[in-house]
């Protein structure tokens, strides 16, 4: 099977992995295109690192096959797979200088000296670590260490980069700086990258496509905007977005040919909502993101309602307003200048076009 022809870089087919009786990954399929940046996103323990380790060859899989660049590497050693890996704890060799950290694997592989020197020069120029080459890892800051760790993957001159939460040991400011650097690096190198994180901002900003995982199963694999705006199920909808999407439990009803979502005495018309499948009347969950709701909207919204303000949280550029809509808790995010002032009762409005409807039982998108 030649995968390279259709531009597939990494192809994971029917992969299962069990630790004893515990099944961690369940018949998982994932195709990553050449030069694509894939982010594996999910809560702790969902199997992201396990999947990455399987691709790297650090774990023996129970079933399935893995192709890299069209070559079946299912039983290859990690070094023969054409991958480089960056770890959360940096995993630098502490007793070696930065230069030796970069060169050690190459020297063991028996590369000629001038080739090694050339690769180190290139990597340290790209990552701007030339002044650090003679230092030991202990004398580096967290950000510098992670840069060296990326360099160690870079000098291997590989097609696929694997990152396992590379930024989660850094403080917030450094994290956002390095995030941008990784993005620039990807643009420059055009390598395939698979990146594990549980930080949704990293996922949204870096990914060409995000694979949202839960319990060893990929829930949705799509472009960030699609994942954000059209989540395939309630889990994906709730996992992305901060604060989380507002969920309202109610019923789907048909009235004179028009669909409505009703909860208590509130009726939300769904004429603008694009249904995924043919709707049937019955219990459902209505979800709308806090930033898709507006205040004092007056006319022009398909749906308006009165609500009472509970708490106002100014966050600088934005303000979060916690409301009660009937008996339902409701969050609204607006820019600061549109914050309701000294008002207990407000009017809110939104367009159900931007909402998501989920089956009450299965949680899948309607």
């Amino acid at each position, binding site marked *: 099977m030649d995968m390279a022809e259709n531009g597939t870089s990494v192809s994971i087919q029917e992969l299962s992995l069990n630790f004893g009786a515990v099944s961690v990954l369940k018949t998982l399929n994932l195709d990553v295109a050449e030069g694509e940046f894939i982010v594996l996103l999910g809560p702790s323990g969902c199997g992201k690192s396990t999947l990455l*380790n399987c691709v*790297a*060859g*650090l774990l023996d899989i129970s079933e399935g096959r893995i192709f890299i660049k069209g070559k079946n590497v299912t039983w290859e*050693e*990690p*070094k*023969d797979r054409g*991958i*480089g*890996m960056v*770890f*959360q*704890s*940096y*995993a*630098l*060799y*502490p*007793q*070696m200088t930065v230069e030796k950290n970069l060169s*050690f*694997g190459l020297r*063991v*592989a028996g590369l000629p000296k001038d080739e090694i020197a050339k690769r180190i020069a290139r990597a340290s120029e790209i990552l701007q670590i030339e002044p650090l080459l003679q230092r030991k890892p202990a004398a580096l800051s967290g950000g510098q260490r992670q840069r060296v760790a990326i360099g*160690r993957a870079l000098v*291997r001159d590989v097609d696929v980069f694997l990152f396992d939460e590379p930024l989660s040991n850094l403080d917030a400011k450094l994290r956002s700086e390095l995030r941008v650097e990784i993005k620039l690096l990807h643009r420059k190198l055009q390598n395939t990258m698979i990146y594990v994180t549980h930080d949704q901002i990293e996922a949204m900003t870096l990914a060409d496509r995000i694979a949202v995982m839960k319990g060893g199963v990929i829930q949705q694999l799509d472009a960030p905007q699609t994942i954000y705006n059209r989540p395939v199920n309630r889990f994906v909808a709730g996992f992305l977005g901060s604060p989380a999407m507002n969920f309202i439990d109610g019923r789907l009803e048909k009235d004179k040919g028009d669909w409505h979502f009703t909860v208590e005495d509130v009726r939300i018309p769904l004429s603008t909502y694009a249904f995924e499948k043919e709707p049937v009347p019955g219990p459902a969950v209505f979800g709308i993101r806090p930033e898709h709701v507006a205040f004092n909207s007056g006319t022009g919204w398909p749906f308006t309602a009165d609500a009472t303000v509970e708490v106002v949280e100014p966050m600088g550029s934005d303000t979060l307003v916690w409301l009660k809509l009937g008996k339902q808790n409701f969050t609204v995010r607006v820019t600061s200048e549109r914050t309701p002032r000294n008002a207990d009762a407000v009017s809110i409005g939104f367009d159900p076009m931007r909402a998501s409807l989920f089956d009450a039982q299965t949680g899948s998108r309607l």
Partner: protein
Amino acid sequence: MQRSWRHRFHLPAVIGTIPMILVAVGVFVIGIGFSLLWSFTSSKLFPSYDFVGLAQYRRLWADNRWLVSVNNIWFFGLMSIACNMVFGYLLAVFMDQRIRQEDLFRSIFLYPFAMSLIVTGLVWQWVLDPNLGLQAAMRNLGWSSFSFAPLVDANTAIYALVVAGIWQGSGVTMAILLAGLRGVDEEIWKAARVDGIPTWRTHVSIVAPMMKGAFATAFVLQCVGVVRVYDLVIAMTGGGPGIATSMPAVYVIQLITVRQNVGQGMAAATMMLVPVLVVLAFSGLVLWRRKRRQEAAT
């Protein structure tokens, strides 16, 4: 100045440690002082104050038995420490494979260390005794020409001591190095595998250098073991056959109790102190240099 002194020495702590300080000063400083003093005298059965300068030292270094003892302790020390380290590390690597009976194995390996060297020595003496141990057992089984009696041969007795020392000490080395191995981040191993570094090379070039502290601890314990070898020698060979396995500590005790020559015994004891002082001075120097480098860095 006043405050930093108070900060460093809490009064209750000082009072609490006074007995220890007194004992330490009494036993070590006064004891060592008198050893040194008497080593310059012509003391025989009882200490005297008839000073003879370095005469005792001259006689000491002319005594063949002392020279053999010094040779033996070097040989025993180097051999047993080196082998202990190697065996201990290999055992630790073996234990680190997450084998199932880990607790059982750990107890087995540590058991010899928990026993007194006298017991260890006696057990080994029985095993190696031509009339009781291995040789007798093999002959009883019908292999009548079997001959294995290292303790009665002056050329091999010291090897038997080394083997007993290794048997006794490698368990502790294993336990310490295992703790060190477990402290190495699993991601280091993964990174080395991705880099294509063979397992043995990862051990030698990456993991072992990370375990400096564990190695140092194990080394110090082994050195203490070498000093304690007196018990083992007494239990296994009594310094024999002849003087083949005599060691400095054995020599000192013999001079004082059997040959009734306190002066020369004290000279030998003082000589035993020299390597300790050298080691102390060396480690002090290393610490001082490290501190100075740290101060220079900040």
